[in-house]
């Protein structure tokens, strides 16, 4: 009998242990190890407004972009504050992978085609081994298709071309605020006698979310060298409005050009003198390749 008691005790201890643990079963298998996680939704769109943003398209996603820049607001009521006059670019961007995109577009401003490749060598991530910022590289070219004058010499193909390269570094600081900066280099094969072929600019861009689907965005380029005479630094302020697969970017800007070469070397209006236009970017994404 004496020996049965420890046996019983042991039995009770063993079974009780089983019962006591029933409270939170998940704790038994939980391993809350932090995982590396890439930061998404840094900007709502792949452009801040005019500038490339540090956001990329997902793999297999096509972005159809339709951009409008209207006439100067100061042109008055007879011109419906610029809305009678429209400059536009339409383009297609495609995400080959989460880190590589390509895009082509056509602007009526300067009758230009443009194409670019955009890379994300560094992607901001949280968790172990995560880098706290993103690094973006963009290289592109533009081709002007303005017909040669009847009486002048026919220009070489190469003189219709310009190139740009751009490096951006940026970070999503929190769910509301993202900021980026970087440098842009534009090379035009042919320029007027008083202008320089090479233009250098510092880029600044930011977004601040006002609600889940609306954000305030701003981008600015300061031209540091090779400024085209008679041009100004392009500045744009606007709002991103997101509805499902669409992003509408409504903004005010002194720039007309809708590719890097054009807005950096051809912005002849001065924002601070009120030479501002209304414009919008419409982005609609389609999932081409499902994963």
């Amino acid at each position, binding site marked *: 009998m004496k*020996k*049965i008691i*420890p*046996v019983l005790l*042991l*039995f009770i201890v*063993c*079974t009780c*242990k*089983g*019962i006591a643990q*029933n409270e*939170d*079963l*998940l704790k*038994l*298998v*939980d391993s809350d190890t932090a995982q590396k*996680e890439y930061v*998404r*939704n840094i900007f709502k769109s792949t452009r801040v407004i005019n500038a490339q943003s540090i956001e990329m398209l*997902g*793999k*297999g*996603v096509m972005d159809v972009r339709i951009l409008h820049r209207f006439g100067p607001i100061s042109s008055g009521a007879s011109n419906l504050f610029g809305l009678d006059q429209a400059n536009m670019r339409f383009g297609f961007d495609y995400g080959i992978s989460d880190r590589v995109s390509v895009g082509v577009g056509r602007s009526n401003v300067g009758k230009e085609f443009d194409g670019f490749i955009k890379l994300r060598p560094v992607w901001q991530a949280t968790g172990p081994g995560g880098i706290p910022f993103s690094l973006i590289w963009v290289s592109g070219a533009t081709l002007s298709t303005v017909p040669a004058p009847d009486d002048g010499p026919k220009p070489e193909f190469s003189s219709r071309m310009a190139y740009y390269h751009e490096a951006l570094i940026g970070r999503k600081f929190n*769910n509301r605020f993202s900021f980026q900066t970087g440098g842009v280099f534009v090379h035009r094969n042919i320029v007027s006698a008083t202008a320089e072929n090479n233009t250098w600019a510092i880029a600044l861009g930011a977004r601040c979310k006002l609600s*889940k*689907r609306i954000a305030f965005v701003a981008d600015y380029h300061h031209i540091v060298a090779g400024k085209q005479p008679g041009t100004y630094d392009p500045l744009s302020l606007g709002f991103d409005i997101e*509805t*499902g*697969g669409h992003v509408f970017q409504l903004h005010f800007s002194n720039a007309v050009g809708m590719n890097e070469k054009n807005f950096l070397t051809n912005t002849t209006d001065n924002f601070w003198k009120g030479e501002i236009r209304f414009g919008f970017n419409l982005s609609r*994404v389609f*999932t081409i390749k*499902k*994963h």
Partner: protein
Amino acid sequence: MKKVLFTAALFLATVALQAQEKYFTKSGNIKFFSKAPLENIEAVNRSVTCVLDTKTGDIQFAVLMKGFEFVKALMQDHFNENYVESDKFPKGEFKGQIENISSLNITQDGAYPVNVAGQLTMHGITKDVKADGKIIVQNGKVSASSDFAILLSDYDIKIPSLVENNISKTININVNCALETLNK
């Protein structure tokens, strides 16, 4: 000596019994569907944690919201950012009980219909949920599955009026977990 052996045997039997009564997985599946006139939304999470105690009938699930994979990358971004707010509420959890656990005989192959009642926590809100499911025992392997539906409005997940027709107000959820014995 006989009694020592008996003690040891009893002890082993208890331990063995304990090891056999809890089952778990960390790679269970949860799928959800929303059927709407304009667009079907579908996502799957393949790293669901599930623990089942066949003795008490306790069953619990945990899932990382960011682990739901959508066919469309943008849908996934919007799901995390605008709807379930995964940064604020990273986890979904269900803690419940199989009400008719006594009908389950884990040593006998078969498909056992079960009624589960418990609390589902998601998007910072906990609600009582009841669901019918099945526990299947086959060659000593245990798996749990269930289909049920929840209302988005119960979890304060708002659909903006502009996309109201794209998203169904009810979401159908399918759970499927193949379990292993938990040795602990």
